[in-house]
């Protein structure tokens, strides 16, 4: 029902467009530019693309030095390396001095597939969310990815943005607005609110269709900015439906579910359930088979929705 498209390709193409407009845009890669699609930019602007080799920590420091000298820097690699391997470099050299560096990572979550747990990451959002000055963006599809890249490059300061490896359903439209820190209501409903991020927004939309067949009207919200969280939309949803399910392709610990549950716990308590990757490492497999095994299906969202409705 939806077309499938690559967030990475959208990212790569948008960078080329921005590169034409903004001579201060500089890209850094760590031997994975063909995977992250920063290779498009490299082909167009070879003088503004620097491969750092398999040396991510140095890449983050070089980003900081370039940004301190007036450049706007996009540093890209796989999410597991971009965050966990470089946590201290991001914290000390980029976030603490609020430098204009955009860390845009691909291959996030479990849909990496065959590479297995070493290359999957369910922790990247948690790691980036906890760093002061860092903002975290997770676009839902390829169309939103293009808009998000533009937005984070226009906005001064450090950002972390994550994308998956696999193609994802296109659920937003070219003329939909995108604003950092603003969630989008994708579908109206009064019985339960499904708040998702990334690929899980499309799963939530599927779940909402399934719930409708059982007479349950679910609201679906795309929370494309994880930090700062759109508290206003979150609280408004809780007030409206009185029951919330969060869903993300990330650990249930300290991701979207945590942000939403804590916000509502402090400001407007309602029943909340988190659908995400359980607290354990992933494994190799087809990405869609992994989604089933790790509980990231519309069916998982449906049963969570019924539980929170019962708890109202």
């Amino acid at each position, binding site marked *: 029902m939806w077309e499938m498209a690559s967030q990475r390709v959208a990212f790569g193409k948008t960078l080329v467009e921005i590169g034409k407009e903004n001579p201060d845009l*500089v890209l850094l890669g760590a031997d994975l530019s063909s995977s992250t699609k920063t290779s498009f930019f490299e082909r167009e602007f070879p*003088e*503004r693309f*620097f491969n*750092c*080799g398999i*040396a991510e*920590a*140095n*890449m*983050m*420091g*070089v*980003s*900081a*030095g*370039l*940004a*301190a*000298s*007036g*450049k706007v820097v996009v540093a890209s690699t796989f999410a597991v390396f971009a965050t966990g391997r470089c946590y*201290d*470099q991001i*914290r*000390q*050299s980029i976030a*603490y*001095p*609020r430098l204009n560096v955009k860390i845009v990572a691909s291959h996030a979550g479990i849909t990496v597939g065959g590479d297995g747990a070493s290359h999957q990451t369910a922790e990247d959002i948690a790691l980036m969310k906890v760093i002061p000055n860092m903002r975290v963006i997770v676009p839902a599809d390829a169309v939103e990815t293009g808009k998000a890249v533009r937005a984070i490059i226009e906005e001064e300061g450090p950002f972390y943005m994550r994308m998956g490896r696999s193609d994802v359903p296109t659920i937003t439209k070219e003329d939909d607005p995108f604003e950092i820190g603003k969630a989008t209501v994708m579908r109206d409903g009064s019985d339960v609110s499904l708040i998702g991020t990334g690929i899980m927004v499309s799963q939530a939309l599927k779940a909402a269709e399934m719930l409708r067949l059982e007479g349950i009207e679910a609201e679906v919200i795309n929370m494309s900015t994880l930090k700062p969280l759109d508290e206003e939309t979150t609280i408004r949803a809780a007030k409206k439906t009185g029951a919330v399910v969060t869903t993300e392709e990330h650990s249930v610990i300290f991701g979207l579910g945590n942000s939403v549950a804590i916000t509502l716990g402090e400001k407007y308590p309602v029943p909340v359930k988190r659908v995400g990757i359980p607290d354990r490492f992933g494994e190799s497999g087809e990405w869609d088979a992994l989604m089933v095994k790790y509980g990231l299906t519309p069916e998982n969202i449906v049963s969570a929705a019924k539980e929170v409705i019962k708890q109202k």
Partner: protein
Amino acid sequence: MIDEETLKKLSFKANAVRKHVIEMVYAAGSGHPGGSLSATDMLVTLYFHIMNYDPENPTWEERDRFVLSKGHAAPALYATLAELGVFPVDELLTLRKIGSRLQGHPDMRKLPGIEASTGSLGQGLSIANGMALAAKLDRKLYNVFVMLGDGEVGEGQVWEAAMFASHYKLDNLIGFVDRNRLQIDGETEKVMSLEPLTEKWRSFGWAVREINGHDFEEIIDAVEWAKGIKGRPAMIIAHTIKGKGVSFMEGSVHFHGKPPNDEEYRIALNELEDERKRLVEEFGGGS
């Protein structure tokens, strides 16, 4: 070559910076005197003689940059910048106090003149790489100086950065290793041996020179030599004495990260005052 006037200026400034360092860490009740004093002569030579720098306008785009990768030597950098006039000397005694712009380790967003926020070791050379690369992209002529501690080069990131600098032929990048041979847990060669250090840098594609890091003339000559190197970065391995200038701190691990007590403070300041008097006798008059 160094003329008498320059030698006089640098000698008096280094003495003044050392006094500030002792006063600052004493007032703060914590801090790192040892590695500040070993770095002092290089910092003073860079800022008062070598660097193209306007203290009135520390964000001037064409300025030479200095990154203190060994961020714990912040007291010496702060004292040098204050003596230069970037911010008031009076502010030095606020080091490490709540609300101060003089953080325990340098914060580029708080204090003018600080080019990079450092403190977690091993990161400054990468930042300096980025600055040197930006100069190349913008066809600007400034140089980027960076100082690493010797214990610090145990960090793997330093060698990632070393590869990057030679790969991208960053000949506008000039590094110093403050080779005082001591780190917190003891002698560098016992904790984690660094030698042969010169050969390591050379094999990573750098031009390398060893100097006495307390000899102003050697520092100046080495930077002149480094500026003449084309197509690759240059590293100056500066042999220094930890705690240089205060007898009981010299060569002592104890004063890596510990301020002097009351008695030690008095002795240290007396020694530095004696050194100032000696300089007056040698050169005649203050500076």
